[in-house]
């Protein structure tokens, strides 16, 4: 009959109206600034720089190789290489960035910088409340703003950070093993050299004495 559907619809909305006051699970709204949903682990928006230790500027993993700057499709990374070097996590002297700026108003969150970085120095952040009153300067993040600790990285992407740490530890171990092997080889070589030198001396001595005796005989 005409109007049946309307009555059914009215009953449905009335049920919703009354139900929303009674049952909490009907209201799915999260009132954002006060209430927040836990973040999904794979969330990512803009890159940040990882540092180890306590001093952000000293512990930056970035060695200023500028691969990310060159690969960045929208060209939003600006790096200036240092003149001097400082030791990196394995103790090797490396360059470091004296300037590392990312213009987040240009960044397209493609994550290519993260994929190309050979030093695990740049990772994706989850910080999304980036609104600012200054739309030019305020959206260019410098290295001080970009630097975030490895602990923070563990907090936002635990699985990924653990993998990275394992990889870095392995690399470090490899380097150390190599260094150890090199040191051992060097020591062995030195010993061998020393031994070789010893025999050479003896021969020389023998030759000398032989010459002397020959002289005497003459």
């Amino acid at each position, binding site marked *: 009959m005409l109007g049946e559907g309307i009555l059914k619809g009215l009953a449905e909305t009335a049920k919703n109206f009354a139900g929303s006051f009674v049952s909490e699970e009907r*209201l799915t709204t999260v009132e954002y600034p006060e209430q927040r949903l836990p973040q999904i682990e794979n969330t990512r928006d803009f890159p940040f720089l990882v540092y180890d230790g306590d001093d952000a500027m000293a512990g930056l993993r970035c060695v200023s190789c500028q691969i990310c700057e060159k690969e960045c499709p929208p060209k939003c990374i600006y790096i200036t290489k240092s003149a001097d070097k400082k030791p990196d996590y394995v103790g090797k002297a490396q360059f470091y960035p004296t300037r590392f700026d990312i213009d987040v108003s240009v960044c397209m969150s493609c994550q290519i910088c993260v994929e190309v970085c050979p030093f695990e120095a740049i990772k994706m952040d989850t910080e999304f409340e980036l609104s600012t009153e200054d739309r030019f300067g305020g959206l260019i993040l410098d290295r001080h703003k970009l630097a975030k600790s490895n602990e923070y990285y563990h907090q936002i992407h635990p699985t990924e950070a653990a993998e990275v740490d394992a990889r870095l530890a392995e690399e470090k171990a490899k380097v150390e093993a190599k260094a150890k092997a090199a040191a051992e080889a060097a020591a062995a070589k030195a010993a061998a050299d020393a031994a070789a030198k010893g025999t050479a001396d003896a021969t020389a001595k023998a030759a000398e004495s032989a010459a002397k005796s020959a002289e005497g005989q003459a």
Partner: protein
Amino acid sequence: MNLNAGWASTGWTSTLDQIFVLVQHRVAELFPPVLQPWVAMILGVVGIVAVFPAIFALTTVLERKGLGRMQNRLGPNRVGPYGILQPMADAIKSLTKEDIIPRSADAVVHFLAPVVLVVAIFLGYAVLPVGRNMVLMPIDAGILFFFAIGASTELSIFMAGWSSRNKYSLLGAMRAVAQMISYEVPLLLSAVVAIMMTGSLSPEAIVAAQGGFSGVLPHWYVFTPWGFAGFALFVVAALAETNRSPFDLPEGESELVAGYFTEYSGFKFALFFLGEYLGMMSIAGYGITLFLGGWGAPFSFLAFIPSWAWFFGKLFLAIFFFIWLRGTLPRLRQDQLMNFAWKFMLPMSLLNLLVAAAWRFLGEWLGAGVGAEAIRWLACAAVLGGTYVLLGRAMLRRQKIGPRSYRYAE
């Protein structure tokens, strides 16, 4: 006619009932006698211009909250406690917004359209009885005046659409005019039954005619077969007349941006919004006056509550019903709208006129008595109900929609 028939109440309830009238008289008495009628009139106008926009402000926030709840959302809850100050924020926003007039628009007509709309709608309140003795301008042809004034809102809507020089505005205005003129007919015809039964075009006389009680139940027209049918038709036509959902085609957001007021911003937009809600409230007020006993109490034992409280209570119920419908129904298509007006509403309201006449004369022929009354009631209800079912079946019959065939274009 004695408008206070059946009104027996003690001193303080009658004082409370007439409180606004008494205040008006007291204030007017402070002025010299020549000015007194003018002062009284201005006080009444101020009352109307203050109260109904205040209800409008409250309605906007309640509507948004109500619709939210119907969709399992919270609705606005940021400005003030429970978001109740949201209308203030909206008002500040619309007042401080830039007022843009399109370069190719007809500036004068563009400016006049919202003003004419709001003025025409406010005029409708002049003859609306909002309580016992509470009508600004008691004229005998009040209902006629209201419908005449109400019809002029179409003019302002077309002014807005035409002067904007915008395809959406013009399409919206065309739709609005087509729709409002189509539904004007059933709106008027459905109201005519109440006028026929009362024998007067005066809103106060219509309210007074519904003022008595049988036992505890009132003599509202909605409790008779022709009254119920008339009321239902009036509600549907009123929804269409005020462009409310499901008849909001003239401003269908998904089709026409905002319809005829697409090119309006700032306070003019707010005026259109105000006009729309005031129109909704005034037509609801007349629906209440014609069929729901106006300011009368629904039960005889509740008559001690002031008449204006009853009127505004009914008005809020009507507004809630409109919001409820808006939260429930999707928008009609243009052809469905027109079919419904001319193939269903019009025949039903014409039949309702006949039934009302039959009711009147059957009452004389059958005489008094419970049996005669029951026969009259059942006969009228059966005619209306049967027609409703048959017409409804015809409306719901599936139309065969095949691929479109062209006669000349191929």
